[in-house]
């Protein structure tokens, strides 16, 4: 069902865990729905860039793989660029997702956006 790339990110997730003293935190999903993603970021303030990003995810294979991929895609990106990472971008980077997984288990980009918003609200913009 899953592409090789999805399985690779599922089996060897990148950037799993929590950033220490994060500058921004975004959590999306709901345990009742079987999907929760928590993204924490460290921001290089001068450059407005994501210095470090980590995820913790409860969820299915797609949920874990998309979380891992989102962190890969976001790392080192400027915040405005990182905000552009859409569900589709993540899915494409993984070589596609099964249709039924496209929406429910592909929330990590929302989590990232929330983390960025959290950072901005804390830093007053």
């Amino acid at each position, binding site marked *: 069902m899953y592409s090789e790339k999805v399985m690779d990110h599922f089996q060897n997730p990148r950037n799993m865990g929590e950033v220490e003293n994060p500058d921004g935190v975004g959590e999306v999903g709901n345990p009742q729905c079987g*999907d929760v993603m928590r993204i924490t970021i460290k921001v290089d303030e001068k450059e407005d860039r994501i210095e470090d990003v980590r995820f*913790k*995810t*409860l*969820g*299915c294979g797609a949920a*874990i793989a998309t979380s891992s991929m989102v962190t890969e895609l976001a790392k080192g990106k400027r915040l405005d660029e990182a905000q552009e990472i859409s569900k589709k971008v993540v899915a494409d980077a993984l070589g596609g997702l099964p249709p039924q997984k496209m929406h429910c288990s592909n929330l990590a980009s929302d989590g990232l956006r929330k983390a960025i918003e959290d950072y901005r609200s804390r830093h007053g913009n």
Partner: protein
Amino acid sequence: MGKSTNSAIFLDNAATTRTDPEVVAAMLPWLEQNFGSPATLYSMGSEAKQAIESARQSLAGLIGAESKDIFFTSGATESNNWVIKGVAEARAGKGRHIITNEAEHHSILMPLRHLEKKGWDVTYLPVDSDGLVDPDAVAASIRPDTVLITMVHANHEIGTIQPITEIGRIARESGVAFHVNAAQTVGHIPVDVQALGADLLSLSGHKFYGPKGVGALYIKRGVRIIPLLHGGSQEKKRRAGTHNVPGIVGLGEAARIASRDLVAEADQLGSLRDYIFAWVEENIEDVRINGHRRRRLPNNVNFSLEGIEGESIMLSLSYPTAEGARPVFISTGSACVSGSLEPSHILLALGMPAELAHGSVRISMAKGETREEIDYALEAIAAVAGRLREMSPVYKRGNKKCAAFDKTEGCDCEAAG
């Protein structure tokens, strides 16, 4: 279940079982040599006819039926659809009410939903937190217009065995036709249509080491049912279609083998099952056993792991990353159904909160399962649970903890340490 280090450990036998090599051997001559249709009079046809009649006898023997009351189908799904639509249609004049329970298999629930759209009334009785239907509730829900009670013998997901004999007695006393979906029990525990009081009973070959795509419906003499497949005069004009001779022969052989091996299998797997429960409770934290502890299929184990999700458990087990590790195939009640991750309706029917249902693991064993394989699988499950819980943003977050589970009270969630 090969023995080489890297071979998979298959613990999803409630979904489907390996076709017994004896069954395959019995089928082969009917695939390779005698391909005649039993409907024909020449020798090839007569031999095929004899073969299916002998399969019918083996199957009848296994379930305590007379062989003339056995009708071959393409599987339990067909048998179940046939019963629900065929009895409904035959008895519509008497009434349009059917009784079942919330935790039935989809091949029962979906035909019932379909009847509801056409104006039928269906009572879905609740099950308790162990998955049991209360016979008194069955009795209380019978109405003058009730024409059918359909109950699964044992649940495919949590293995709970229903009090079928009691329900059968109630049905008989009320003159209501009684159908038992025995897809999970036939061949695994004793099934006797008489003792159960079943008027109709469904079964599927591939659930007990027989072939896929073949099953049967037991129809007690005198029970009225409209055919689902109209056409030729096969199966006494009650189920048309050229006989699937190799499949039917395979089903008969599976029945013959089950009659021989069933008791030993149930003994052996029953102890392994209890061993697994003990091991899991001893070695994994925050786990909950699902289904009735004793009134359950000997080959079925089901538990929920807090804070993690079933598909990721299943995938991690079936695609292990360590060099030389054996894949372990289990199933879960967390299924991705058209666009959303839906927890099993059966686990929810127990009153279980959705987040726990998502973390459910079903281990279903086949005869010959070994302690070694089980130990391997359990260690693998414990390791995967540990790894996924480390990854989980909600596990042991400290804000919620589920205490002992009881359906009527729901999940007792409270702020914890």
